């Protein structure tokens, strides 16, 4: 394992030290592993709290800041945070106007946030929750854990964060969050596995001529393994299921192509060069697009495509100022 680490079991705590040193505009609660804005929540502003396993940086801590999240609870690598952590994040940023929990649909995240919401409610904090489940690689059914939450989370945190910044109340914030969540679809492809530091070796073995299609951000293997293909073919493997899953013409959309951590930007752009015409062909009007590492899987080589169907309000909120380590514009 070739990584910048000291003790593979202590990666998160040490990375938090670096985040704290690099970002004076953030507050790092080392004990609870919570990253929040250094400035307290403005009275009357609904607070947004997210969190999840670590190893997906900049998600979530890198999206804390004006116009986006108020706090993020950082679990161990690939492990959802505990209810205590989420409760600490929630209490740290509640101004009295209530807190929205943004949860990615993994059993662990859902259960831990659920417990945290119960505890917070018992402490008198109003909590609403939205669960993002946008990964079309996963067959959904009432009998399963359902789809994973991936890239739509980033888009949701940005758009809903802007609404909260405008002073909307908890009900309105939660309602928009559910609309954005429902409007997003994602699909990921991995060319390599990733290595969880504490495990010390790649989570799965991928022969040199194969790739995982429909991989999740926890480094879990994908739904199918196929021969390594050209960027053009891979673009199709990503665009087709996403577009198809909408079931109707997509129209205006916000698109995110995220590297998974081990794929350099030049390859991401090359892949986007193949994706863009396919989206256009399929009737997706790309109104805004981000290409880069936004939601990653440690050092995995690969990429995930997210398409969020966007109405004018979503686009307006997308364009609103945001000041976070991972996403910044307008201020």
């Amino acid at each position, binding site marked *: 394992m070739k990584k910048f680490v000291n003790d593979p*079991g202590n990666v998160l705590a040490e990375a938090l030290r670096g985040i704290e040193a690099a970002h004076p505009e953030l507050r790092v609660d080392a004990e609870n592993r919570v990253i929040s804005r250094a400035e307290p929540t403005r009275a009357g502003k609904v607070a947004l709290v997210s969190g999840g396993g670590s190893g997906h940086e900049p998600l979530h801590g890198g999206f804390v800041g004006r116009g986006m999240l108020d706090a993020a609870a950082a679990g*161990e690598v*690939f*492990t*959802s945070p*505990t209810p205590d952590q989420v409760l600490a994040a929630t209490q740290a940023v509640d101004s009295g106007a209530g807190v929205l929990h943004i949860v990615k649909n993994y059993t662990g995240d859902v259960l831990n946030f659920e417990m945290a919401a119960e505890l917070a409610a018992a402490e008198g904090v109003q909590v609403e929750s939205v669960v993002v489940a946008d990964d079309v690689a996963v067959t959904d059914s009432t009998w*399963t*854990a359902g789809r994973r939450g991936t890239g739509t989370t980033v888009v949701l945190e940005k758009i809903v964060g802007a609404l909260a910044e405008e002073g909307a109340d908890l009900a309105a914030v939660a309602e928009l969050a559910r609309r954005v969540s429902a409007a997003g679809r994602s699909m990921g492809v991995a060319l390599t596995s990733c290595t969880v530091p504490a495990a010390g070796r790649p989570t799965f073995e991928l022969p040199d001529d194969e790739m995982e299609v429909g991989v*999740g951000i926890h480094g879990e*293997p994908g739904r199918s393994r196929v021969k390594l293909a050209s960027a053009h073919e891979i673009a199709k493997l990503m665009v087709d299921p996403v577009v198809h899953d909408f079931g109707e013409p997509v129209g205006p959309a916000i698109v995110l192509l995220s590297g998974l951590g081990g794929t350099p930007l030049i390859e991401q752009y090359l892949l986007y060069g193949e994706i863009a015409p396919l989206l256009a062909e399929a009737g997706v009007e790309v109104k805004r697009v981000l290409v880069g590492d936004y939601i990653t899987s440690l050092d995995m080589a690969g990429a995930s495509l997210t398409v969020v169907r966007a109405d004018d309000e979503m686009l307006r909120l997308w364009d609103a100022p945001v000041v976070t380590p991972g996403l910044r514009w307008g201020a």
Partner: protein
Amino acid sequence: MSAAVSTDDLVAWVRAFRDTVQQHKDELTRLDSEIGDADHGSNMARGLDAVVAKLGETPASAAELFKTVGMTLVSSVGGASGPLYGTLFLRMGPALSSDEVDAASLGAALRAGVDGVVARGKAELGDKTMIDALSPAVDAWDAAAGDGATPAEAARAAAEAAARGRDATEPLVARKGRASYLGERSAGHLDPGATSATLLLEALRDTLAGAA
């Protein structure tokens, strides 16, 4: 063998669970890397280390012990297994009506715990989760206890049933938890949570066998 289980015995069980999870940590992580995200071993080990660190003097009662264990697991494990194992222990305490712990009452406590896990996680038998080990284990316990078995005997039956349940997860297609994302590809692998749950019951078996 004695029919009564002391709080000391239960503390020893929890410690034995920690020890066996530490010994099997890499195996649990390896199983989780096959159909999950390669953290089950470190998750459980971290949580049980935290539990053992909390166990200073012997707690006043079994109920208190289980509450401490459950709360510590919930607050230190994370992932799916944290809330689920946490709930298991949190529900066991209140189910122990008196301080007299015998085969029947420990069985009732275990059943309450497993019911709690089902309520939280919504998994059914055959979904390829820890329930596949836990649920047959409590059934076997109750059957043994109904036949007048001592706690040690009931624990032996439960551990055997858990191991069978764990082994039965291998061919299954997962319907809950992270392994469910793999669809058909989840077949052919043991479930990590069913494996750690079997360690839990084997630790109980070994502790009670030793505490003759």
